[in-house]
C-alpha cells in the first residue's frame, strides 16, 4: 500500500504548488499579501520562503494582477495568479472572461497560455456576496476557460498539479470552509488528477446527485441520512466543470433513473442548466425514461447579504438536499 501523509485541504494545495515550483522554474505566483501575510488568509505559514521572488506581493490592482498573468503566460512564464475570492474574479472580469478566455480564439492562436487563476469561494460570516458567492457559472460561459473546483484535500492537490501543467488557462476555485478542515491521508508519491473525470464520492442506486466543491460534503451528509430512510444516493463529484464528464453522469443516471443537480451558485442561469442540457443532449432516451424529471438545488436568486443570519437560508443546506430528494418520486 502506498505511503501517505496527513494533510488538510489548504496544505494539500500548498504542497501541490510547492512541488510544481520545484519541478519547473517557469512557475511563479503573485497576488495580494501572499508573502506579507503568508498567504493572504494566512493559509500556509512558511510555505513560500524557499522560492524567493518567484512569489511576489502586488498592490491592490486585481485587473492588473489578472492581466499580468495572461501577458506573462504568453511570454514564457507559467503564472499562478492569486485573486483571493471567486467574487473578486468579477472585478477582473473582462480580462478573465474575454481576454484570458477568448483573445486567443479571437485571433486564431492555438499556442500555449499556461495560466492558473486561483481563488476561494464559500466564505460565510456576513462578509457578503464577494466573499461567499460561487461565480463559476459565469466562467463556464467563457469560450476558453477550464474550471476546477475540488471537494477534498486529495482532489485539491492532484488537480492543482494538473492545472499548473496545463497549457491553457484554468480557474482553480478552492472552497473556503474546507481550507482548515480535517486532515486526510494523501499519498506521498506524486499523483495528478486529469481534468474532465468525475469522481463517484458515494455509490448508490436510487438517485444521482451531481455536485462539486462545497456541495459534495453536503450531498454526502444528506446521503447518509437518506440511507437511513432507505434511499440510496449516488454522489457524483464533477471536480472540473469545464471540461465536464457528461459520460459519468449518464452512466450513473442509467443506473439510478433520477438526477438532482446541486450547487451553491445562484439558481437562475446557474451551472445546473448547462449540466442538465448536456445530459439531455448526450442521452436523450435516458432523459425521456427518467423516473422523475431532473431537479436542481441551488442558492436562491438573491445576493448573499451582509448579515450572518441569512446565509443559511439562502444557500442550499443538507436539509434542503434531503427535502428535495424526497420530492423525487420515493413514495
Amino acid at each position, binding site marked *: 500500500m502506498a505511503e501517505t501523509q496527513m494533510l488538510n485541504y489548504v496544505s494539500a494545495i500548498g504542497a501541490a504548488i510547492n512541488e510544481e515550483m520545484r519541478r519547473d522554474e517557469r512557475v511563479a505566483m503573485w497576488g495580494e499579501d501572499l508573502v506579507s501575510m503568508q498567504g493572504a488568509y494566512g493559509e500556509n505559514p512558511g510555505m513560500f520562503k524557499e522560492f524567493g521572488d518567484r512569489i511576489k506581493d502586488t498592490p491592490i490592482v*486585481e485587473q492588473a494582477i489578472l492581466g499580468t498573468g495572461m501577458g506573462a503566460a504568453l511570454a514564457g512564464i507559467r503564472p499562478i495568479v492569486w485573486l483571493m475570492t471567486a467574487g473578486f474574479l468579477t472585478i477582473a472580469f473582462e480580462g478573465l472572461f474575454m481576454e484570458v478566455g477568448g483573445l486567443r480564439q479571437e485571433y486564431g492562436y492555438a499556442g500555449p497560455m499556461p495560466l492558473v487563476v486561483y481563488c476561494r469561494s464559500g466564505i460565510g460570516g456576513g462578509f457578503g456576496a*464577494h466573499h461567499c458567492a460561487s461565480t463559476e457559472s459565469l466562467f463556464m460561459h467563457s469560450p476558453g476557460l477550464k474550471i476546477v473546483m475540488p471537494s477534498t484535500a486529495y482532489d485539491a492537490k492532484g488537480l492543482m498539479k494538473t492545472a499548473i501543467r496545463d497549457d491553457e488557462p484554468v480557474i482553480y476555485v478552492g472552497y473556503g470552509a474546507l481550507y482548515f478542515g480535517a486532515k486526510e491521508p494523501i499519498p506521498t508519491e506524486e499523483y495528478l488528477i486529469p481534468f474532465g473525470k468525475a469522481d463517484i464520492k458515494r455509490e448508490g442506486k436510487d438517485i444521482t446527485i451531481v455536485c462539486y466543491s462545497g456541495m459534495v460534503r453536503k450531498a454526502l451528509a444528506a446521503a447518509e441520512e437518506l440511507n437511513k430512510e432507505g434511499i440510496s444516493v449516488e454522489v457524483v463529484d464533477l471536480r472540473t466543470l469545464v471540461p465536464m464528464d457528461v459520460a459519468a453522469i449518464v452512466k450513473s443516471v442509467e443506473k439510478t433513473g433520477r438526477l438532482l443537480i446541486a450547487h451553491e451558485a445562484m439558481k437562475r442561469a446557474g451551472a445546473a442548466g448547462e449540466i442538465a442540457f448536456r445530459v439531455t443532449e448526450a442521452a436523450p432516451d435516458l432523459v425521456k425514461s427518467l423516473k422523475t424529471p431532473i431537479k436542481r438545488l441551488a442558492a436562491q436568486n438573491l445576493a448573499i447579504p*451582509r448579515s450572518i443570519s441569512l446565509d443559511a437560508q439562502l444557500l442550499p443546506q443538507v436539509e434542503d438536499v434531503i427535502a428535495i430528494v424526497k420530492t423525487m418520486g420515493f413514495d
Partner: protein
Amino acid sequence: MAIPKEKLLEMYRNLITARLLGDKLAEIFTTGVAGRTGLHRGTGEEAFPIAIQANLRKDDYLKLTFRMDFTLFAKGLLLRDVIGAEIFRDSSQFGGPRYRFFDPDNGLLAHTGAGGEEPPIYLGAAVAIMYKKTDQVCVCVMGDGFANRGPMHEAMVMSAAWNLPIVWVIHNNQYAMGTSVKKSYKIDDLADRAKAYGFPGETVDGNDVIASYEVMKKYIDRARNGGGPSLVVGETYRLMAHFMGDPQIYRPKGEAEEWWKKDSIPRYQKTLMDMGILTVEDIDKFQREIEAEIEEAATAALALPQASYENHLKTAIDEI
C-alpha cells in the same frame, strides 16, 4: 477664521466616543455575540474621520473606509445603530441603517465587498447633485490600499471632466492588510495623485484634529460652491492588526510604538487645554458620560433584531 468652540468640543466628544466605542466593539466581538470574529479595528485612526464628518451635513454623501465606519455616529447615526450594524443587527425598522451601513436617504450609499468599487457610485451621487442643483457635497474616503484600484481612477477622471462636487480622500494608515504603503506607492506624498487629474491635492496630519478639520473644510466648501473635485490625504497609522487575530508578521518592531506617540487624543486634549476650552475635570466628565452612553447603546444594540428573511425577500426582483 477661528473654529467655533462648540465645533471644537463636538469633535472632542466624538473623538473620545470613537475611541471608547472601538474598545467596546472589540470587547463585544470577543464575547462572540457578533456571530463572527476578526473585527477590523480602527483605534488610533479616529481623528481624521471625525474631522471630516464635522464638516458635513446629514444630507451630504459620505463613504468612510470600512474600518472607520464605527465613527458614523458623527454623521448622525445613533450609537445603538452603529453598534448594531457592526454586529449584523438590522435597525432599519427603527430608522437606522440596514444590515451594516447602507442608508441612501442619509447619504450612505455602500461599502462594496470588493473594496474600491465605491468611487464611481459616490460620484453618481455627485452627478445627481449636479442635476438636482442642490448644494450637497459628496466625500469619498478610500484606504491607501483600495485607492490604487482602477474604478477610483476612472471616477477621478470623470469628476475632473465634469467638475463635480466631490472631495476624494485617502485615509492613509500606512498599511493595506500586510502591505506597507511604501511598497505599493513609489511617491512619497499620496496627494501627488491629484496632479494626474488637474485638481488640487493636499496632505494633512490625520492625527491632528484641527488641521484635518481645516483642510477638509477648505475643499468641502470649495466643492459646495461649485469649485469641483479635489484630493485630500490624511496621514495616520493602523495601530491595530488588519483584523483581530492577524499575527502581524509584516510589521517592523517598534513602528507602532512610534505612532502611539503621535496619538490624536493627548494631542487634541493639550491643544484644547492650551486654548482654555477644556479642563482636566471636563476630560473626566466627558469620559464618564460617554462610557455610560456607550454601555446603554450596546445593550440596546444587542436587543436589535437580526436581519429577517421575510424582509429580505422584498429585495427580490423575480422568483427566488
